[in-house]
């Protein structure tokens, strides 16, 4: 089964993803890691804001809103039920 790896901002609402990689460096990278987005962490896309951006994600028990720019740097493997 081939892996389907997409940037987080393309994960549809309600879908589940598993963190594969983070395409950011330095402080930005550390901030994302500190949020809990290390490899193999489960992330679920919860809902979009009224304007479509940012999107709220469920990460390790917390609800974190990320703008599409940030979310595009987090690469996840789509998980299907």
């Amino acid at each position, binding site marked *: 089964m081939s892996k389907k790896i997409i940037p987080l901002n393309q994960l549809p609402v309600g879908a589940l993803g598993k963190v594969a990689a983070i395409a950011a460096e330095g402080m930005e990278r550390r901030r994302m890691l500190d949020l809990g987005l290390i490899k193999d962490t489960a992330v679920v896309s919860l809902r979009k804001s009224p304007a479509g951006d940012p999107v709220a994600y469920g990460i390790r*028990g917390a609800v974190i809103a990320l703008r599409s720019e940030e979310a595009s740097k987090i690469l996840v493997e789509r998980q299907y039920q």
Partner: protein
Amino acid sequence: MGLTNQSTSIGVLKDLYRVAPASSDDLVVALAGNPNTGKSTVFNRLTGLNQHTGNWPGKTVTNARGRYKHRGKNYILVDLPGTYSLSANSVEEQTARDFLCLGNPDVTVIVTDATCLERNLNLVLQILEITDKAVVCVNLLDEAKRKKISIDLNKLSEHLGVPVIGTSARSGKGLEELKDAVEAVALGQTKTNPLRISYEDGSDMDSVVSSLVSASEKIARETVRREATPGAVRRGAETRVSAASVQSAAVEQVWNLDRDIDRILTSRALGVPIMIALLGVVFWITIAGANIPSSILADGLFRLEELLSDFILQTGAPAWVHGILVTGAFRTVAWVVSVMLPPMAIFFPLFTLLEDLGYLPRVAFNLDYFFKKACAHGKQALTMCMGFGCNAAGVISCRIIDSPRERLIATLTNNFVPCNGRFPTLIALATIFIAGNLNGPFRSVAAAASILAVIVLAVVITLLISRLLSKTILKGLPSSFTLELPPYRKPQIGQVIVRSVFDRTLFVLARAVMVAAPAGLFIWIMANIEAGDFSLLEHCARFLDPFAKLLGLDGYILMAFILGLPANEIVVPILIMSYMSQGSMLELDSLAELSRLFADNGWTWLTAVCMMLFSLNHWPCGTTLLTIRKETQSWKWTVAAFLVPTLTGIVLCFLVAQGASLLQLV
């Protein structure tokens, strides 16, 4: 921080960061932890201080310190900003880390949230690397119980190697045990053996965080028990999917009720309308609720004025003494107290309730898109919310924005949001000139609706000016935006209301005496000292009049704004006094009288509109300017903060005034 007496008075200028023990016997306790763990509640409970707690991340941006006594020893408690990590990604993390490393606390208490312990362990483990003398406080046990989560505190203590105390700081439970544990560690009675993570996989960023996360997971797995929630059954499929069962439990942990509430509050169709409606309701409650207390206060103070007046006349003092004390100082104070106090005493508690509930981050979530378009930061929505209460507090809250450029934009535009000192001005003008013909309940509704319209206008102006600033003097790219939407927490309604009302009342009264009374005195003097044919006041007004007329105002109004620099709430009293010194000595006890006074002085609906516009867009008050100077450490930006709203106001009023006369609307 929040909207308290401490955070909105001139006291905000004192940075409470440097800790100097009063005597070498004092023990310094650092209070660290993730944001939103109830750290500030623990602080309040231990010190009895009124540091505000609120439910949005990044809340505690000023360090607060307080003292408490326990078993004969003195303790200094330092509340550090909430941080997720000590990696110094932000000013808050740097502050926390610096204090823990260099400030030499005798004990560090790490406050954690029992409902999401695993996440909190990240910081706990990092702190345990730096210090042996630590106590972990597992707070919000009442919330955890509500969500059917239980923590094995003993086991946790075994794993971490330090004392672990469970608390529900909100209800005061566990705090004595916490103080005991702190004492024991500080005095060396308890030997700690803190867990030290070994970074075997490597020391690059990813491996370090990975090691921390794995360690946290392992500990959480063995100490946290959750009962299955109904939602878990629905999402059982997710549980099977992920590699580690703990991770998928983490996804399911996002509490169901919160998700359902948010589904509505941030939905495409209802999110923004609900926000506006909620704001409207808050204003309506403020306006309608303030009516009766206002008239009671006005009656009472009016009677007091008569007594005071008689007393002074009886002592045979010269007329000018009566003038400055009664007609000047007292009347101005009476106005401020009867008109400003009730709305403020209602608005602040309401706002605080919303804060405690956790609604404000949802506001930022809904509006971030528009802020992004304005090249500003979504958290600016939060700083604007704070600005509603007080612009000085709003400016300080801009610290939650990391990027200096976006922080400056938020600081410079904060004044467009009318603070509580300006509300009554806006309400009075709206009530007289817009709702003037309506009666009964419709009047409050119409007044609330017009204030709402004014606020929406203020937000639009803020966004436009923010965009203008980022295209001109503050050019740059948008920075990253991550905002945590914390779980809703039921606010302690009774406590909040009582504490906030009391706090606000004290604040307004103190300001009335310290600022309004001298201002009233000053105005009376200016209005009654003649230089040539006119009083000093008239001279100034005449000088300003031509320019003011271009803006749809008059010389006295502009004077009132200028003299209102110390505090926005005295603008209207000064104006009233100026008008009254021109002729009839009215007793002002109703808005109808006020309406007549203004009309007698050449007011039209256009004047009211322009005055409202100018009130919205003029220089920040004295306290705010000083706060901006302190926050930006620069005179250049302080001057900019003065000019940006002023120029906007001048341009807008000019356009409206000239436009109306061109179109022959007036």
